[in-house]
């Protein structure tokens, strides 16, 4: 199983499934942070965008994700102040040049992105920027992998570990995969040969361990500076994953010391009543128990042009990958 949307896309883009023998099956897991963000978070973001004086700044791939009733893109077309940004640095720049607006950044992403958001909060504090805050929706990988294995229902022998999440967190958070669940794992890079070599390494493991294929980037201990920054700004918390439910200790919340940068506390956004799209099986797809072509909406009422669920909207969603590359198995 791969648990990184970029791996999912690379496997499709390079036609790797077709190169593998039939007895090796690649399953896509919950690797897309946008896809696992629950409706409630989107609904809160939309409520914030509708708040007087607030400008919502977000990574572009959140714009088209459907919430319970609307999307950020649709709200923007109705006049709400919402801007797509590439980096939290851009959001901070907006806060500096528009002191009359409240800039709220949508903090979505795994451990690759969370440090950049932590850094922005530390920087905002240092500079005395008082009109910047974050709606924190960051989630962490190792815990959800454990939850999937503990729940059973997915037959997995090993994992391709996310290359850039692992650049931040190192390899020790994954040791439980081998020790508790007897599963093999390899931290894989993103080139086609990286992925193929990683699969080979997985097969060759005589007993389950955590190995690193992506040696040109990964330090075993990860990025200590990023880890320290995250620990300073965030605390771990139970969190809700779309389609999976509550996973213990799998999310980040902003610590009390940085409460003034926590958009949830600052604005107490009131989301609309939560509603899930009927017929959408994103949850099962994210858990790896169903594939997109199992969904009765796939390719019919749900396509990249008019997506029903988050897995189809996101550039790294499993359904979007299957649709774009004609996946069948």
């Amino acid at each position, binding site marked *: 199983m791969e648990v*990184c*949307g*970029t*791996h999912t896309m690379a496997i499709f883009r390079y036609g790797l499934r077709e190169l593998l023998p039939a007895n090796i099956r690649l399953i896509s897991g919950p*690797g*897309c*942070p946008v896809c696992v963000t629950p409706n409630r978070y989107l609904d809160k973001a939309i409520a914030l965008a509708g708040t007087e004086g607030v400008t919502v700044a977000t*990574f572009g*791939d959140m714009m088209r994700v459907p919430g319970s009733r609307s999307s950020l893109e649709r709200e923007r077309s109705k006049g709400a102040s919402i801007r797509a940004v*590439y*980096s*939290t*640095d*851009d959001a901070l720049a907006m806060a500096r040049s528009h002191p009359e607006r409240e800039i709220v950044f949508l903090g979505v*992403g*795994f451990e*690759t*992105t969370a*440090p*950049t958001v932590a*850094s922005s909060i530390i*920087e905002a504090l240092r500079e005395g920027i008082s009109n910047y805050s974050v709606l924190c929706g960051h989630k962490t990988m190792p815990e959800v992998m454990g939850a999937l294995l503990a729940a059973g229902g997915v037959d997995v022998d090993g994992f391709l570990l*996310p*290359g*850039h*999440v692992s*650049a*931040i967190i190192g390899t020790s958070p994954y040791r439980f995969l081998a020790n508790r669940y007897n599963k093999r794992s390899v931290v894989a*890079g*993103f080139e086609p*040969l*990286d992925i193929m*070599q990683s699969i080979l390494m997985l097969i060759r493991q005589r007993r389950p361990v955590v190995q690193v*294929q992506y*040696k*040109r*980037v*990964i*330090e075993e201990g990860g*990025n200590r*500076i*990023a880890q320290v*920054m995250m620990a300073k700004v965030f605390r771990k918390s139970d969190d809700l994953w779309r389609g999976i439910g509550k996973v213990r200790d799998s999310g980040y919340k902003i610590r009390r010391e940085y409460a003034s940068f926590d958009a949830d506390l600052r604005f107490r956004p009131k989301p609309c009543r939560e509603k899930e799209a009927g017929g959408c099986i994103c949850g099962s797809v994210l858990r790896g128990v169903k594939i997109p072509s199992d969904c009765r909406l796939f390719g019919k009422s749900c396509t990249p042009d008019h997506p029903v669920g988050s897995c189809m909207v996101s*550039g*790294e969603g499993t359904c979007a990958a299957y649709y774009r590359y004609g996946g069948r198995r």
Partner: protein
Amino acid sequence: MCLGIPMRVVKIEGSEGVVESGGLSRKANFSLIKSVALGDYVLLHAGFAIERIKPGEAKKTLKLLRDL
């Protein structure tokens, strides 16, 4: 997203700078990595350098893949 792009450091100004790849240059924030020098390759993600790329290891991987 895990989308991290290897880019070369061409300018350093405190904890910020400029990186480039294939003729495209971008502002970069270096506050997440230890030390960076001109000419280093870094992985850029959402405007931040999240790790240095180790040229020695890159060469080793390339050799391994050639030998496969």
